[in-house]
């Protein structure tokens, strides 16, 4: 198969239902599902079937088809748990509309979300409805041909949507994540075929290096450099691992990408495998994300059957198999050496580096580990070229970043903005500010390894280096907003409690240090500490930071140090007289 064949296929899939002009897209990502999306989807199906078919002989004709005719005997196009067998496309006042389950549209706090759009239109060009109840289904379908339903309308020109730039999430909320054809129809797998048939591995490496992409899992290590290192390693057996062990509390970017556009991640992994010379890949995903696991499993099965995974991909000599490995609830497994230990069936305990995984990783073989979002950036880079990607973002941080916005903020959900966007814009414009007229106090980034940023620093541009100067990190992209009622000592204690219970116990500074730090913070929070305790806290933070074996321990003191830096008065106010 070459690029022209694939383009023909995409064209064919796009025109599969020429009579259908519109789609009612229901967000079926985890958050909307929990707020009732499956019921809304079922109601939309019922409402479609309830619309009487037009008289025979009329141009629009009657319906055939079901939810999505993907030509797949195994139930393609039907979304998990929704039970959507049965006729779906119906004529609504001259338009042919179908109901489709899609991935995350971003504004999770307004779920369940339904978008009515022309077939194939992007999210911004759709009419979006918020907090849809099953009884709203007939009104929404009627709006396909008429004016929007005003009481449910959620304008897509509001800053939450307008200020975003969607690259990683370009298909999220647009395509059906379970549909292979849906992915190919929007140009999916063309970058992989392009890499395999028109580029050498060295040329792929050059584009990735040129793009300036840096690891999205938190470290920010240049992706091109990492790939090149593994590519240079001798040895026949190499591995590609996708780190989907999204353990930071308050972060759900990877989950949303896997639930909304799983093929894109697989495609990124396959391109990586071609570039470094690997034939086997693993996706290490949290068992706490059953829906993501299910969609990924479906995607692997379908990609394999279509010949985009497995042996002789696109009729080239390149072969690549992907297997899923489930985590079992250990935060430390997000650390790369611990993750590999877990894939090998061991306790997820890190080991000292070097040797780095690039040299000696899974079963001692050279191994490339990247995060979900990093892999999701690969296909667009190959498609548009590294220079295109390097034109987005700041000097040292290229491209966009997906953030999970949560906490006390008006718009909770998933956003993607160019690197360098000011924090203030993210919180006040995109996030809609703090609800209830309360004042902003701090935003926490980077989870248990990050820190809190107070109001006076809101004008910094968000990129890897900017956040570092404030003593926090980009992390994987969780952003928790806190209002004036938040108690910063309590927040620091919360994160320390997390690190304490997630410490794997291998090295003493982390195992014992986090215990002692937690005890000190608890003492301070309870108002039983003195000035010397505060000094001890700071000293111990430095020790744990400097001497721990892996990232978990080295960064565990960050939330304490950062709150001490910006909110020291709160600590001091809790001290009892010396």
């Amino acid at each position, binding site marked *: 198969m070459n690029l022209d064949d694939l383009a023909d296929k995409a064209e064919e899939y796009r025109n599969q239902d020429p009579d259908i002009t519109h789609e009612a897209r229901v967000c079926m990502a985890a958050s909307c599902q*929990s707020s009732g999306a499956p019921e809304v989807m079922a109601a939309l199906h019922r409402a479609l079937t309830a619309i009487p078919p037009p008289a025979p002989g009329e141009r629009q004709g009657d319906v055939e088809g079901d939810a999505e005719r993907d030509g797949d005997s195994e139930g393609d196009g039907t979304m998990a748990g929704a039970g959507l067998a049965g006729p779906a496309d119906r004529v609504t006042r001259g338009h042919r509309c179908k109901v489709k389950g899609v991935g995350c549209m971003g504004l999770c706090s307004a779920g369940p979300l339904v978008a009515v759009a022309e077939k194939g239109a992007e999210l911004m060009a759709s009419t979006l409805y918020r907090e849809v109840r099953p009884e709203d289904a007939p009104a929404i379908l009627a709006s396909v041909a008429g004016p929007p339903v005003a009481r449910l309308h959620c304008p897509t020109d509001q800053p939450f949507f307008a200020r975003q730039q969607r690259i990683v999430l370009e298909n999220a909320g647009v395509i059906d994540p379970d549909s292979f054809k849906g992915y190919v129809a929007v140009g999916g797998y063309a970058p992989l075929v392009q890499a395999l048939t028109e580029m050498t591995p060295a040329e792929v490496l050059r584009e990735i290096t040129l793009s300036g992409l840096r690891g999205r899992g938190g470290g920010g290590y240049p992706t091109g450099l990492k790939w090149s290192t593994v590519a240079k390693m001798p040895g026949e057996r190499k591995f590609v691992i996708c780190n989907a062990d999204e353990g930071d509390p308050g972060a759900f970017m990877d989950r949303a990408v896997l639930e909304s556009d799983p093929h894109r991640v697989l495609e990124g992994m396959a391109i990586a495998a071609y570039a470094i010379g690997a034939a086997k890949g693993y996706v290490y995903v949290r*068992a706490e994300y059953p829906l993501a696991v299910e969609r990924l499993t479906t995607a692997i099965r379908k990609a394999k059957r279509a010949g985009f995974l497995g042996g002789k991909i696109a009729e080239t000599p390149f072969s690549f198999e992907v297997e899923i490995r489930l985590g079992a609830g250990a935060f430390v497994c997000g650390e790369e050496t611990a993750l590999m230990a877990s894939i090998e069936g061991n306790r997820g305990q890190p080991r000292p580096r070097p040797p780095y995984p690039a040299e000696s990783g899974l079963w001692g073989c050279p191994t490339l580990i990247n995060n979900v979002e990093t892999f999701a950036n690969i296909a667009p880079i190959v498609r548009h070229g590294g220079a295109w990607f390097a034109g987005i973002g700041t000097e040292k941080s290229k491209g966009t970043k997906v953030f999970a916005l*949560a906490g006390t903020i008006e718009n*909770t959900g998933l956003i993607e903005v160019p690197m360098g966007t000011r924090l203030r814009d993210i919180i006040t414009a995109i996030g809609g500010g703090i609800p209830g007229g309360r004042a902003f106090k701090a935003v926490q980034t980077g989870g248990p390894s990050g820190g809190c940023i107070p109001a006076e620093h809101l004008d910094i541009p968000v990129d890897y280096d900017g956040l570092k100067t404030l003593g926090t990190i980009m992390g994987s992209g969780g952003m*928790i907003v*806190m209002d004036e009622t938040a108690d910063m000592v309590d927040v620091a204690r919360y994160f320390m409690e997390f690190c304490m219970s997630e410490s794997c116990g291998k090295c003493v500074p982390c195992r014992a240090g986090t215990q002692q730090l937690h005890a000190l913070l608890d003492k301070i929070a309870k108002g039983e500490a003195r000035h010397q305790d505060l000094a001890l806290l700071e000293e111990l933070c430095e020790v744990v930071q400097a001497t721990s074996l892996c990232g978990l321990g080295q960064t565990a003191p960050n939330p304490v140090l950062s709150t001490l830096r910006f909110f020291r008065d709160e600590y001091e106010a809790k001290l009892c007289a010396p």
Partner: protein
Amino acid sequence: MTLLQTRPPLPSDDKRWKLVNATMRRNGYAGHALIETLHSVQDAFGFLDETAMRFVAGSLDLSLSKVYGVATFYHLFLLKPKGRHACVVCTGTACYIKGARGLVEAIQERYAVRPGETTPDGRLSLLTARCVGSCGLAPAVVLDGAMQGNQTAGQVLAKLERLD
């Protein structure tokens, strides 16, 4: 000379052991399939007991201490049966900021169970999770697998009371 590895027989004629065995066979009885196998035991039986761990150790040719070590390392594996109902309170950052601790305390007080414990009558297990990823619905509780968003202590307790 090849040694024929003898695998232990299924512990009982309970059909669920066949599911567990199928997982191990699919992975060629390789030691690195341990975590997958333990997942499949827990899916089938709800928890891991000594019989199961001995069987898995024997089948994968691993020491019992290794199996026990892995089973106790990961939070998801349970060594005791869960209650008839499971209430998982998310204690991720967003839920914490929005009052998850109050939910845990309320349940703890009403049913006299601490997180990770089950009521003596086996009716309810109280568990906590490190973020279920539904931060838009904070504070969130997963009751018998169903996500309940924006909960107050009163709402959760009322739901728990209604359980059989």
